[in-house]
């Protein structure tokens, strides 16, 4: 690594930290400043002015928002995530139960999606215009247009209701055997792969097609290189940056997919926890969950940026 490369990577790290800080501000103040009062919400039917005032004081909601932001952010650093307003348990407990489940789901999905999408995108680019390319591209545009919950619903209908092969819910008792666990994962993972693959295939194919239009690829063609060699040897290494970026951006879609899929299959993950939190307006829970999701997302984007920098041969010397 040269000095210039490390300087650029350092800059990326700094940008990521700054973004995370700005995101934390946005998350906190959107949840705090918009109208809607947690104390009234918690008391529900039993609300009186006095009761709401007392509860607000107990929860510390009467203090200025800036101070509460400082408390919250320093709490995050110390690992003190506060108490869930609804279940009265520490947020850290709730999250540590759920986070591993979501990570497993996302990891399995990414492990299948990324090679599959890149492979199909590259193959479509190699035989551009062939029946195979048109089949992949049509399927990709179809799945981009379908909402995740539609894919999920149709798959449940097919495999759980009509064929009765797979369980409709992904509830995992601690005593579950290995086969039960695998069966429970099949449908959620399939839905996520379908919904996040298509965008990645389209972007990969487009990035390679762009590189195919450059003079150096034309020169390689004139030298008599075969179509696969043109794509794999000449176009692909120069499209690493846009492809990696598209992978990182599809992760935003994957997260959206995870939120939907965990709800459909009642999967005990972090996204489901957060959706339930939004229903009950459990602010400490929502804030922490958002920060965890944004943290992972920014980490992925940063990793993509760094890979893109490292893939640029002009920066290697």
């Amino acid at each position, binding site marked *: 690594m040269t000095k210039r490369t490390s300087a650029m990577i350092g800059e990326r790290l700094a940008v990521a930290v700054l973004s995370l800080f700005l995101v934390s501000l946005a998350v906190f103040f959107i949840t705090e400043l918009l109208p809607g009062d947690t104390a009234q919400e918690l008391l529900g039917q039993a609300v009186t002015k006095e009761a709401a005032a007392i509860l607000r004081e107990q929860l510390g909601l009467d203090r200025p928002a800036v101070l509460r932001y400082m408390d919250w952010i320093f709490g995050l650093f110390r690992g003190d995530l506060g108490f869930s307003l609804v279940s009265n348990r520490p947020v850290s407990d709730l999250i540590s139960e759920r986070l591993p489940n979501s990570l497993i789901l996302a990891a399995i999905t990414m492990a299948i999606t990324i090679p599959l999408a890149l492979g199909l995108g590259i193959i479509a680019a190699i035989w551009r215009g062939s029946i195979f390319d048109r089949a992949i591209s049509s399927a990709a545009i179809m799945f981009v247009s379908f909402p995740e919950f*539609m894919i999920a619903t149709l798959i449940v209908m097919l495999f759980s209701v009509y064929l009765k092969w797979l369980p409709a819910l992904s509830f995992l008792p601690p005593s579950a055997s290995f086969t039960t666990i695998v069966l429970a994962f099949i449908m959620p993972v399939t839905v996520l792969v379908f919904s996040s693959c298509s965008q990645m295939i389209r972007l990969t194919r487009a990035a390679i097609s762009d590189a195919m239009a450059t003079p150096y690829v034309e020169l390689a063609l004139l030298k008599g290189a075969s179509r696969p060699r043109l794509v794999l040897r000449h176009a692909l290494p120069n499209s690493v940056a846009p492809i990696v970026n598209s992978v990182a951006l599809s992760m935003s879609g994957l997260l959206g997919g995870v939120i939907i899929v965990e*709800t459909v299959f009642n999967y005990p993950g972090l996204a489901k926890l957060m959706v339930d939190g939004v229903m009950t307006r459990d602010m400490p829970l929502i804030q922490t969950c958002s920060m965890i999701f944004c943290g992972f997302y920014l980490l992925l984007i940063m990793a993509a940026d760094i890979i893109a920098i490292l893939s640029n041969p002009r920066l290697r010397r």
Partner: protein
Amino acid sequence: MTSASIKPRRKVRFRVKPLAAICLLVVLFWVIVALFAPFFLRYPVGDLVSYDYFGPMSADYWLGTDYLGRDIYSRLVMGARYTIGIAFAGLILAGTIGVVLGLLAAAFGGLFDTLLSRAIDTFVGIPNLLLALVIIAGGGSSIPVLIGAITAIFFPGCYRFTRSMAVNVNALDFISAARARGEGHFYIMIHEILPNIVGPILADLGLRFVHIVLLLSGLSFLGLGVQPPYADWGAMVRENIIGISYGAPAVIIPCLALASLALALNLLIDNLPQRIRDHLE
């Protein structure tokens, strides 16, 4: 007859592909349904009209009845209005803010551009559906909040797209010529830059509209979008999903409506004339 040789200037014509024409018809169909929804209703939307829940399609209930015995056809028609109406309102707001700020950033440049771009990048650090959840957690779910959330989520993309297109045009000679003859920033924005990028921007907004529709129905599916007794297409899927094993049409019909709209719009933009498409990502 020498005068016959003077022909009117030939109009620029695009070849319309048949697929694009079909897609345009589908999109127009749903737009008309959404616009004139009240005229197409057969029953009031929230009314229980039949004791037979998940009833079959019949002369009385064209698409059957839902989990409470309400007319699916009427709810679908009204759902088109919610889905398309809210999404379109959000698109207009996000598009206007994004395009105007993007043009401003490109025309003024310098520190203004840098600061604005950095500030807007913050929003890009929050995944779409997550930002929607946070906003709805703060503001509760109502139609104005939904439109506001859509605007907040989608204007950064419009901004970045417009800005990158406008910056390219801004570097061309005729802009320098306009500046040299003393035109102001706003004149250049509106009369010199905008007409040159309006095609790609409209196509880009079309693609964003698909994303908005999918996001909005996703929210409604989670129960955080349009609230009962009213329902957009996503909410219709949610409320009927309990009957998935015996009342499948009630779930599939709104799904098909969503899929047809989104697919038609995506294919339409995919089959636009190359000149416009070239600029799309």
